[in-house]
């Protein structure tokens, strides 16, 4: 019964045993499934890429805001960070996708946004809030003498932060940002719940149709793992570049 919808072909009892015919069938299945899953994987890749880039932007803005001397900027950044770290991604996603349009309707605006946009935004805000804490920690680890050197050269506080302090804090951030990027890739699976046809969504669709849970979920695991390896590799490259000025090269 393992072969599911190909059950009819097992009638040929003359064959020596099931194992020799099972393998080609499995391979056929995998190829068929993969073709279907790949279109979902492409959505997952796009979503991961967009939300990571946007999340990185949020992380730097919020992380730098968090160390600002200005109490308003400081408080606002801290509030946003805590809010998005303190509420689950799933709820944020549902809120943006289901609740926001309702609120818009009440106020007379059309606040229905495409799932790709909502997914990207929710993922970016969520991962950005976590990454902001990484950015803040790395900024605070920069030697105070660097601020003094910048002041002695008459850099403005803003120039000092963005040209002197933040760039040299980047190597310190890289390992944690690498972990968060992989976390973000895995989190994208949640967007299937707002009917965005990503990898997880396509897999679920396929499984409903074929009932072949074992093969499909195994494939799903491998595909996410493969993508995670690619992300980890890319982050390693980025880390090596960010650390090029350090004595030992790496962190």
């Amino acid at each position, binding site marked *: 019964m393992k072969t599911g919808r190909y059950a009819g072909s097992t009638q040929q009892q003359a064959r020596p045993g099931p194992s020799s015919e099972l393998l080609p069938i499995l391979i056929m299945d995998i190829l068929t499934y993969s073709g279907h899953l790949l279109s979902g994987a492409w959505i997952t890749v796009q979503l991961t890429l967009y939300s990571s880039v946007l999340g990185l932007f949020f992380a730097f803005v919020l992380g730098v805001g968090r160390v600002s001397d200005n109490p308003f900027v400081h408080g606002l950044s801290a509030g946003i960070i805590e809010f998005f770290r303190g509420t689950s991604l799933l709820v944020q996603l549902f809120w943006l996708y289901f609740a926001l349009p309702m609120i818009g309707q009440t106020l007379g605006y059309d606040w229905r946004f495409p799932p790709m946009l909502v997914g990207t935004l929710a993922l970016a805000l969520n991962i950005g809030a976590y990454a902001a804490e990484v950015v803040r920690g790395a900024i605070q680890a920069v030697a105070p*003498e660097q601020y003094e050197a910048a002041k002695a*050269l008459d850099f403005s506080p803003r120039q000092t932060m963005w040209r002197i302090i933040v760039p040299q804090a980047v190597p310190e951030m890289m390992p944690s940002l690498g972990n968060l990027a992989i976390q973000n890739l895995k989190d994208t699976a949640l967007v299937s719940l707002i009917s965005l046809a990503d990898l997880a969504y396509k897999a679920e669709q396929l499984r409903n149709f074929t009932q072949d849970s074992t093969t499909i979920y195994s494939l799903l695991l491998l595909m996410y793992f493969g993508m995670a390896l690619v992300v980890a590799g890319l982050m390693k490259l980025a880390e090596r570049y960010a650390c090029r*000025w350090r004595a030992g090269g790496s962190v």
Partner: protein
Amino acid sequence: MSESNQSDKIIEFQNVTKSYGDHVVLDALDFSVRRGEKVTIIGPSGSGKSTVLRILMTLEDIQDGVIHVAGKPLWHEEKNGQLMPASEAHLRMMRKEMGMVFQQFNLFPHMTVMRNVTEAPRQVLGLSRDKAKKRALKYLDLVGMTEHADKFPSQLSGGQQQRVGIARALAMHPNILLFDEPTSALDPELVGEVLQVIEHLASQHDLTILLVTHEMQFARQISDRVCFFDQGKFVEEGRPEEIFTEPREERTKAFLSSFLGDH
């Protein structure tokens, strides 16, 4: 000092007091430096020598008194004939007069030597890339670091880093250069190359130099005036020959004799 008039003084401390909590570091300090003068400050550890320079560079504020740099109040602004605490804009303007060379070099580690020297002229003074580079090459040449322009600070020796630190400060064209123990963090064999550069700068007439050092021989060589600083006050000052060969104060004698043991 008697022939100098008011406008001659590029730096003037009047009754300056600085304390950390109960600990008084500068105690009603009066002190002045003439334009183009090369002044060395010597004194025991913890006496407040660095504090004098750091206050000038606006890295530390003061509790009392007035400091004038190039005729303008440093930590104050004149408003309606009254001295008010300086705004950030005023401090930024005043910093243009001065440059500082640090004991620990404090180069920007993520920038090449070239960018360390061009960054402030480009971003702060608004020089074009070409102009900033030309200027940087001039000063890197002066400190003998042209061939290392594309390296990062982590690839340089301490002496080389300090020479870049000097070029970086010079590229902002300061009228006053502050050196805080520029060779104290260096291996003995690297001290000479840095002192040589400072000696060359000391031969320039219009540059005012204020140097804190423990290199007594060097202080004697380049200074117009040596000031012995102890417990928040200048105990004694004079021409190097006077201070080093016939100090009047007991504390100066004691301090100098503690150094004779080393050489």
